[in-house]
């Protein structure tokens, strides 16, 4: 079956009920997207499908409609996405395990809600868990990213 990830088309020979997360990590070796729980409880596996955040552990690849973007395709080391740049500025990551999911969730949210309140940020980011408790830095970085996206 054919899927488009980060602008590239791939032909993968997998069962249609395989979660997209497995395809990304095991078939395409895109290991930036993490496995935390497999049951939509942690957010570590968040990617974009046509720009909207989706838990890739929940998406059977056979039901995928649209183009996938993973953390590897959001920005590039030389040209960071505004959310990634804000994450660096605020030194958000601790161990880093949850962070690609956090960044993908924040990037999709700011795309539709460029001027969020603190309550909005807490609502959208509460479904992404961080064992290291980087939540205060996440909230500040989302605000910085929002400001830079509005200014851009």
């Amino acid at each position: 079956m054919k899927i488009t990830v980060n602008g590239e088309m791939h032909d993968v020979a997998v069962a249609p009920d395989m979660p997209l997360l497995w395809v990304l990590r095991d078939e395409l070796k895109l290991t930036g997207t993490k496995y935390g729980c497999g049951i939509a409880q942690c957010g570590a596996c968040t990617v974009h499908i046509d720009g909207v955040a989706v838990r890739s552990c929940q998406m059977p690849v056979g039901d995928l409609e649209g183009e996938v973007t993973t953390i590897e395709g959001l920005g590039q080391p030389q040209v960071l996405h505004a959310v990634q740049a804000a994450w660096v500025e605020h030194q958000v990551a601790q161990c880093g395990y949850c962070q690609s999911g956090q960044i993908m969730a924040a990037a999709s949210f700011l795309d539709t809600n460029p001027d969020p309140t603190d309550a909005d940020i807490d609502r959208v980011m509460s479904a992404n868990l961080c064992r290291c408790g980087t939540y205060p830095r996440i909230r500040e970085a989302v605000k910085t990213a929002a400001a830079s996206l509005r200014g851009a």
Partner: protein
Amino acid sequence: MRRLITVTGLLLSGAALASDGHGLVIKTPPVGSVSRTDGLQAWEKIHAVVSHPRCVNCHTDEQNLPMWSGPEYADVRPHGMNIHAGESRIGAETLTCQTCHVTSTRPNTVPRAAPHTGMEWRLAPAEFLWFGVDGRTICEQIRDPERNGGRDGAGLVEHITHDAEKKGFITWGFDPGAGREPAPGGMQAHLDDMIVWVAAEMPCPE
């Protein structure tokens, strides 16, 4: 075969039609054959379905919070993770329901995962309020086109067959998959009850 089904149906309860797509049999009782008592009995079974946690948890008020209630939960509380479906009722304002509840007609096989259906996950419109509401109030809402999405009796029946075609939320309620208690009955029984209730002119308990 169609003729045989029709003839048998007539003998039993009027016309019966197996329809394509939804896989359910529509058994229309002869005009005037359904009493108010039959209708109220059918309503009681409909009520057992629509008051089940599988249904009420997403039929909530204009606070737009999905609920977690039922035997799977230690207590009754709003959906965890600070989820708020917004006025859009699909979470568009912050986190869309579909971020976790994807759209798929595949069976729900993983315990405690986010359930999915063939329809896009959402809260029912706020005026279809069932959570924490008594049966008579739900009954009056369901039969009121002003508060049921503009449906007459035929529309209510069609709502069920359409859901069966799409493997939507009603279908899921009876077959929620691993670790979740299903609503009582099944799609065919629910459809039969709805047809009888409608034929009895939608009586509600006093």
